[in-house]
Structure formats: C-alpha cells, structure tokens
C-alpha cells in the first residue's frame, strides 16, 4: 500500500480533529477524501506528510513511517489556500522549490518549461507571481507539486479558482499522472470533479471515517432502471412486471437482480414495443455526501 493509516488520532488542545481513522490507498489509485470544513481532512493529510504529529495511531507512506526525509523526496503536495511567495517569477519559484526538493539542476532546467507549458503558463515567464490570477497561481502550485516527479501526490482543492476549461485540463493531467503509476490523494469540495476523478473515496465526519468505497459502488442505487418507449407506446400488459409510469412513454422499474433486465428487454421486443432509451439509475456523489456528511449521524 502507498498510504496506510491505522487508528489515527489527533487532538488539538481538547478538541479532537481525528478519531481512530484507518484507511489504505493502493499504488496508482486516485483516492478522494471528502468531508465538511473541520472534519479533519487537512489534518489527516498533514499527518501523512509529517507536518503534524499524530496524538495516537500510526501512519505509513510508501512503506516507511511518515515524515522522514526519504519519504518526503517522493511526495508532491499542493496545500489548500496556498500562498506562493509573490516576489518570484513562475520559473524562479519552481526552481526554488525544486532545489529544496533535491531535484538536480539539469532536471529542473528541463522540467520547468515543460510543466509551465502543460499547465498553460508558458509565455508568462517574466511575470511575478503577484501578477498571476487565482487560477494561474493554482496551476503554478500544481506545477511545484509535480516538479519532482513524485510517487504520491497530495492535492488539497486542486482545481480551486480554476475556470472550467482549466479544470478539465488539470483533470486530464492528473489522470495522465495516474497512468504513469502515481498515486493521488485528493481533498476537494467539488464533488462532481471528485466523482469523475477518483477511484475510491472516503467521507470524514467529525474526525471519523463515515463511509468509504469505490465511487461506482457508493453511487449505485440497487437495480433501478428507467426506460423510454417510442412515442405513443405504453407498457405492455403482457409483461408480468409492475412498471411505474414517470412520464409520457417513460417508466421506472425496480428489479430483483442484475440479470432480470435481459428478460424485460426480451419481453418488450416480443410484445412489439419499440424501445428508445434505457438507463441504469445511480445517485450522485453529491447525494451521497449530503446524506452522510450533512446528516445527523456518522
């Protein structure tokens, strides 16, 4: 496992931020951490990066205890609400962080223009960071996280302040990183983004994991289907199956098991009814999040 956390706890003063959190992230996985403000997401990430010491429990990153210099060399991090030093130009800033990260000079010289190009920041090399828009700063922040070609990326709100085109761009870039074998650990409030990006998510509530699983499993709503028949057609009475009409020639079915839909289709065709649309119903991550994080219980 790239990330392994066992019974992790953190208390600030008397206030518990994390309470018995356990999770694991596999190599090459995009793992999303969801939760309301103050749920403990950033604390968990900071513990994994060795920035904050846990009060109890243990955590490993790349099979080593968190916080060692050896591990940090292989990690990229984009914090939420980061404030890049504004007296640097983009390339200077990347060169500075690259040197601190231990990236050799020739590698920095090659990677920096490459990353600036990939993130749409080429042509602004002489502009100081104070002249950057919020979206540009976000992309520059992402560039510093990617510069050292890390094995694990921790991204806190990676598309915050970025326009939809830029967001799509960043999503594609992160998927490319995943394809290279990089593991991503993402915190975000943009649930639609997370749904498109993440393989697995966990929802933190009051410092505890309230729910975890793959996005596909969590958003599946049993075997609910919606069907649309050709205009003017109605549900054949010969089919011994109760379908609820939800609109003109539109029906919703709840089946007992996954394979029953094949029997329904055969029955419809046998009755001479023309099918125009068939869709398996899923709930969104947002529905799920609101149910879990927004609800009263954990």
């Amino acid at each position, binding site marked *: 496992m790239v990330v392994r956390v066992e019974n992790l706890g953190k208390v600030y003063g008397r206030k518990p931020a994390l309470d018995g959190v356990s999770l694991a992230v596999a190599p090459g996985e995009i793992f999303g951490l969801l939760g309301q403000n103050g749920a403990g997401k950033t604390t968990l990430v900071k513990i994994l990066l060795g*920035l904050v*010491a846990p009060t109890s429990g243990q955590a490993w990153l790349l099979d080593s205890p968190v916080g060692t210099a050896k591990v940090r060399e292989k*990690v990229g991090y984009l914090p939420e609400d980061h*404030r890049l*030093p504004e007296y640097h130009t983009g390339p200077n800033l990347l060169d500075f962080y690259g040197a601190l990260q*231990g990236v050799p000079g020739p590698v920095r010289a090659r990677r920096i223009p490459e990353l600036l190009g990939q993130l749409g920041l080429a042509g602004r090399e002489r502009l*100081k960071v104070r002249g950057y828009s919020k979206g540009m700063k976000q992309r520059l922040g992402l560039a510093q996280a990617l510069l050292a070609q890390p094995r694990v990326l921790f991204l806190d709100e990676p598309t915050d302040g970025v326009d939809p085109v830029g967001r799509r761009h960043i999503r594609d870039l992160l998927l490319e990183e995943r394809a290279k074998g990089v593991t991503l650990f993402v915190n975000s409030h943009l649930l639609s983004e997370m749904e498109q990006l993440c393989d697995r998510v966990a929802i933190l509530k009051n410092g505890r994991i309230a729910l975890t699983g793959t996005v596909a499993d969590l958003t599946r709503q049993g075997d609910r289907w919606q069907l649309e028949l050709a205009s003017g057609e109605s549900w054949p009475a010969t089919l011994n199956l109760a379908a609820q009409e939800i609109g003109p020639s539109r029906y919703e079915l709840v089946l007992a098991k996954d394979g029953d839909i094949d029997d329904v289709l055969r029955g419809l065709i046998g009755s001479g009814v023309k099918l125009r649309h068939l869709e398996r119903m899923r709930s969104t991550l947002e529905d799920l999040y609101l149910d879990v994080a927004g609800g009263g219980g954990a």
Partner: protein
Amino acid sequence: MSQNSWWQRPSVFVAILGDSWRETRDSKVLYVLLGGIVLLLGVVLTARFEPIPGSKQYLQLAARACGVDTDGLDATSLNAMDMAGRLRGALYSLETSETVDDAEDLPGARWRVILRRQGIPLVGGRDTAEQVSERFGKIAEGRLFVVDSIEELEDRTTGLLGIQRWSLLVSAGRDLRVAWPHRMTLFLGVVPLTSDSGAPLGLQIFILYKLLTTGFGAWIMLLVGVVVTSFFVPNMIRKGTLELLLVRPIPRWRLLFYKYLGGLMFALVLLVALVGGAWVATGITAGLWSPTVLWAVPILLLFFGLLYSCSTLVAVITRAPVPAMLMTCLYWVALFIVGILHGQVEISRMESDPANKSQGISLTDLKMNRNGLGPRPRPRQPDRKPLYETTFGQVVESFHAVLPRDRDLDNLMDRQLVKDLALAGPLRDLTSRTGSSAVVGLGITLAHLGGFLFLACWIFSRRDP
C-alpha cells in the same frame, strides 16, 4: 530524482539565499538605501582637506622629544614626575628650520634643521649623530620625521659648555600627515567645517569614519535593516507558505537558520556599501587609507545579527512582523540604556577610587573628558553613597554583566581606528587598555545571538504548522 540527503546538497543553502535575495530586492528598500549611501558618499567626495603651512611646532616637538625616552609613554597617566623620570640628561631644542628648495611648508616638504643639545658642562656625556638620527621625530611608536642626513657642527668652545649642534635634513615620517592640521571643507571648498587653524587630519578622518560607519550611519542602517528583515521570517512561516517549505526533505531548523543567514546577507550588502564606500571616498579625498575601518563590517554585522536573532525568535513565536520589529527595537533600546547607566556607574567608581581611573576607560570617555563635554570629577559628598555602591548601581551592573554591550563593540572599533589615525604612541597605547572588556562583550553578544537563534529553531522545529 536525487536520493542525496540534505547535507549533501549545498544547492538548498544557495536556493534559500537566492530566495532571500529576491525578497530583499523586491522590497525596493535596498535600492533606496543604496541610493542614499551613494548620495552620502557623493557628498564626502566633495570634501577637501588642505594642510595648513607650519612645521615649526612639530619640528620643535621632535627636537624636544630627542631628550626624552618616550617608549611606552602613557597618555592617561602623563604627569611632570613621569616626564622628569624619562629625561636622558640633556635638553634638546630647535635652533633654526627652513624648507629645502623654498618648498611650501607642508607635510610633503623636506627641512633643513639645526638641532641643539644642552648637556651638563664639562662632565656630561655626548650623543652621537646616529643616536640623534634615530631619536629625531620618534614619539613612542609613532614617527613624525625621518632624518635623511645628519652632520655634527663642531665647535670647541660650545663643546666645553656641554652644547652639541647638528645640521639635519629631514622629511615627513609616516605619522606626520595624520597629525598635521588640515582645513576641511565640503562641496569643493564652499562650506568650511573646521576653523582657520584646522584640526589634525587623523582626528578629522576618525570623526568622519565614526559618523559614516559606527556612528550615525550605522544607526540608520541597523534600524532600517531591523524593520525590513522583520518581515522575512513571518512571510516565510505564514499559513499556506510554510507548508510548501516544510514538506521538503530538509530539517526545519535548517530552513529557519538559512532564512536567518539570508537576512544577514541583506545587512551585509548595505554595510559593505556603506563602510567600503566610506573607506574609498575618504581615501580618495584625504589620501588616507585606513583599512581597519573595514572592521566595522563584521562588528556591525555581529550586532545586526544579534538584533535579527531577537527578531527571528519573536517572529517564530508570534508569526507577525510588527511584534518582531517592536520587540527588537525594545531590546536594542534596553541595551543602549543599560550601557549608558553602566557608564555612569563606572564613572562613580573611578571618582571614588583613583586607582581604577585608567582601567576600562573608553576612548569616547577620554575624549569627552578632554573636551570638557563629559562628566567631570565631582567633589565627593561624604553623606551620599557613590552610585556603584547603591542597589540601583548594582542592579545596573548585574544587567550589564549579562547583556550584550553595543558600546563595547563601538569601543573595539574605536581602538582599531586609533591604531591608524592617532598621532603616535600615547593614544595607541589606549588600544590595549580595554581589550578584555571587548572580548567579554563579544562573547556575551555571541551567547545571546546563539541563544535566541537556538530557541527560535527549537520552537520552529516542534510546533505544528
């Protein structure tokens, strides 16, 4: 990806210094200050030092000194008994003196001198030409004149009366120009700064150095340095910036320490510009190159390092520049006040115990007393305890014992300057008087600096971001 550990990567140090340098340049204050320094030095470059004709007093002094053993002469305890004990059994005097080839009577000239020795008639010994040649113009370790040639003027009659006469051809020794009175003007002669009788060139340069480097100039530089650099650490450790640094594979204390060194670099650039510029400008205008003034750079850098370490500690604790700035200034003022009060305690001790008069005296004190500016010995009031015996005096001394002494550092600089710019031995002798106090001062300063820095690094390493 490099797998080297942080100590194998000097690029980290270079990167943080580079970052500090960019931050410094970005503040624009550096350029304003450098501009101010250039302007100031431009004014210095308009200064003119004109020697005032008149060698007589120095030739007379050199002649009289031939009859006195001036080695190790102590200016602070100089008295008639001392001088009497140093007489060599004959009195020397200058009979005539004139410049050679009708040259102007200035330090660059050569002089034909008739020197007269009055010994004890009939029984007294005689001095050889070699002895006179060696003694003439030498005062303690200083040399006003050198003898180029000497010839004894034989006269049987006067010889019987114990009189010897020599004709000497002399030229300026290495210290003559420093002692020679010069008239100083600014703006190419438009604004006179000295009276018509002038003042010794060495003294004028000494005052100029003091004004530009360890005095007024240093105060301005240090104050601006404290203000500007008090933003460096809080900027680095603010939320959102700090995390981007702490996630790197570098120990936290090293990040802070390197940032501290970056702040010192800011001060170093200014100090080198100010002190180096003052050295070059006075060298060009006065023709007097005293490299010891360059000691002001490390001495002032050390004091700035002390203030900046205090600023760093407060910044790490509060994460804000204003408290860092205020606390540092407060610390500085406290050191200054303790220094002033300690001076008063020392004076009270000297007044009470004459044996201590020559111990630990600073050049500043000496000058103040000589010019009548400083506190004069007051008649002892028997019903009143001297300050150093009071509780207040003891409290001041306790604080002074454990706090850094900026005045000691200042005196250290003075002593170095005196070596180049004082007339000769007597003042130079002062340089060895307060050596131990300067060493202790340096030690305490370094201890405070190290303590502040250690504490700052320790807190920074342990605290959650």
